[in-house]
């Protein structure tokens, strides 16, 4: 008789989700699914609002990466206004976006995932959280807090507040950078650099102890999608879309992000509110692809900054290229933090960053616009249609986590098959199933930041609903 194990909620991710695992009479896993159980409705309720409000409204999609939505939305409004934004305005947006990457990646690595590395995947779940981390390795917990603060502080200096700053607007940004603010940010760079430069060597030693997980954590061939600069360096903000395959071959290159609809389609599945995008020419679900740090490092030639390039070389020499195991999202994320800090420094040292022309002004000049940027979790697509007066009539948002939907489902199944025995469930098995999801650092709602202390209730029930086994976590 088949049984279902449910992990609800999945913890230490951003948002609400559950995992269900089907096991057969022998206790072997036959299927597993990742269900996103929340519904937001942004695409619908923005209809009728002025396009100029869209950056601020869509920023509310997320409390962790409002800046990412500000970037994609502002780029979409730029497109509707049909303007070229002043170079300093674009550079200031990039600056804030790098800060966003650093703070969000720090949150993912230190606060959400490092308890698994420091305390172990089988450790007591009551302590396997950020509080347990503080107890076991207070210096590392402090590093995590400080690195996140570094990024958040830049966002606040530029935009007036840490979460949902109203500084990035269609046409550019609404206030130039002063020399005082620039110097204030520059002073904080050395500490951030020290933190990442001691965390990277630590993690490179630690991950060698996770060979089983590396082998089975969503370790399978897929395509990889990301933005890449014209010179093939790592891009977080502009450039073109590139898709590579599991062998590292370029499948799609120099693809105009505005024409994303030619290569990406979205499938709707009954078990989840999260849509599942796929590479259109290969169809659903064969067109499975991944986005985010792993995809970006697979897709670029170099990062474009010296220290991160050195790390990228080592990353590629230690792991096969392209990297397939989603466990290495964590490693890739740390390299991106290093790159982000280097870029922040580089941008601020260029005197043109203080130029005061930072905004182009225009009204609606097109009825349809697309803005694509990279968010920490992957490629982020905003697509709006407006009437002749600039009022929203239609919106499509393909949020980074969505791209990974198919890969997360496949990853859950792979890990469940390897670690879960339906005859006798142990908490550590289920934590591995959750941990594969955490590799992707999914941002499912962004309004709830669930970690550590969230309760978990796992049941094996037969078809009549009779509970055969139960593991709970308070």
């Amino acid at each position: 008789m088949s049984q279902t194990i449910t992990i609800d909620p999945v913890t230490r991710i951003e948002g609400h989700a559950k995992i269900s695992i089907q096991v057969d009479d022998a206790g072997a896993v036959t299927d597993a699914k990742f269900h996103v159980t929340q519904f937001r409705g942004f695409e619908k309720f923005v209809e009728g609002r002025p396009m100029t409000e869209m950056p601020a409204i869509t920023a509310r999609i997320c409390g962790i990466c409002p800046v990412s939505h500000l970037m994609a939305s502002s780029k979409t409004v730029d497109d509707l206004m049909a303007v070229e934004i002043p170079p300093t305005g674009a550079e200031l947006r990039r600056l804030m976006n790098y800060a966003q990457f650093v703070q969000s990646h720090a949150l993912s690595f230190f606060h959400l995932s490092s308890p698994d590395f420091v305390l172990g995947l089988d450790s007591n779940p009551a302590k396997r959280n950020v509080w347990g981390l503080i107890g076991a390795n207070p210096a590392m917990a402090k590093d995590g807090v400080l690195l996140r603060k570094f990024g958040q502080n830049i966002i606040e200096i530029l935009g007036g507040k840490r979460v949902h700053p109203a500084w990035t607007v269609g046409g550019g940004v609404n206030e130039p950078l002063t020399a005082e603010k620039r110097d204030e940010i520059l002073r904080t760079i050395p500490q951030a650099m020290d933190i990442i430069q001691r965390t990277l060597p630590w993690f490179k030693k630690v991950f060698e102890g996770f060979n089983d997980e590396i082998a089975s954590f969503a370790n399978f061939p897929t395509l990889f999608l990301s933005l890449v600069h014209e010179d093939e360096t790592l891009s977080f903000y502009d450039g073109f879309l590139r898709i590579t395959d599991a062998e590292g071959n370029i499948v799609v290159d120099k693809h105009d992000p505005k024409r994303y609809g030619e290569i990406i389609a979205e499938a709707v599945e009954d078990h989840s509110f999260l849509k599942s995008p796929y590479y259109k020419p290969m169809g659903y679900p064969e067109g499975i692809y991944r986005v985010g740090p792993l995809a970006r490092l697979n897709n670029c030639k170099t990062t474009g900054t010296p220290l991160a390039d050195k790390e990228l070389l080592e990353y590629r020499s230690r792991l096969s290229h392209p990297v397939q195991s989603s466990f290495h999202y964590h490693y890739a994320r740390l390299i991106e933090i290093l790159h982000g800090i280097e870029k922040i420094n580089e941008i601020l040292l260029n005197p043109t960053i203080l130029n005061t022309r930072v905004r182009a002004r225009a009204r609606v000049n097109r009825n349809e616009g697309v803005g694509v940027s990279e968010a920490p979790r992957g490629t982020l697509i905003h697509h709006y249609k407006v009437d002749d007066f600039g009022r929203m009539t239609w919106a499509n948002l393909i949020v980074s986590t969505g791209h990974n939907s198919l890969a997360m489902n496949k990853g859950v199944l792979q890990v469940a098959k390897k670690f879960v025995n339906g005859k006798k469930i142990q908490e550590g098995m289920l934590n591995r199933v959750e941990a594969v999801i955490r590799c992707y650092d999914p941002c499912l709602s962004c309004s709830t930041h669930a970690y550590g202390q969230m309760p978990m209730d796992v049941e094996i029930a037969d078809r009549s609903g009779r509970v055969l086994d139960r593991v709970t976590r308070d």
Partner: protein
Amino acid sequence: MAATPVSTEVVTLKLNDRDVSATRGQTILEVAREQGMEIPTLCFLEGLTPWGACRLCMIELKGSPKLLPACTTKAAEGMEIVLDSDRLKKYRKMILELLFAERNHVCAVCVSNGRCELQDLAQKNGVTHVRFPYRYAKYEVDSTHDLFRLDHNRCIMCTRCVRVCHEIEGAHVWDLKGRGIETEVVADNNLPWGQSESCTRCGKCIHACPVGALVEKTTAVNEMKKRSGFLPYLTTMRENRP
């Protein structure tokens, strides 16, 4: 227009137990503000005819069973007035909450966020949450005007736009249509604003509006800066001209 004759007759009255003097014809609101005493208002704007619509400036008059609006009640000899009793504070808070519940005031994404009279008053009067169910009624945004935008979601029916356009600009673009909760501001007998032939594009209504209902078109969140201080200057110049 002939200048209004200035009264010289003086009356004495009490505001919050304080003896004050006033010129006959002055309103309680004028007297209180002259004395530096705070009374919250929303529909009142110096330079426009008082309307008495928002009811935030209600005061207690000794001997009167009902509350009176300070903006339209004239000062009279021997009045004893309370400006800020617990009862008044309770009602003011309730009025503000009802305004939030009536339409869709989403401060976080509003162009007037941080510079909104409704938001300021809510903060000053201790509105930490709204106890009444929101209506979530559907309202349109009129973006048809070349320069300006009218968002009915944010309108509080203060009619400052109606009065400034009629009394100061002399164009009388704005009126009200409907009754009660269905009332809406309309341009030129209910045309899209962009089709209004009477609108002179002067922008006075934008700056008279206390909230994010009437705004400049290219503004994004937090960016609308209103300058309602231009009105006393305009009225003073008009009334004192030879």
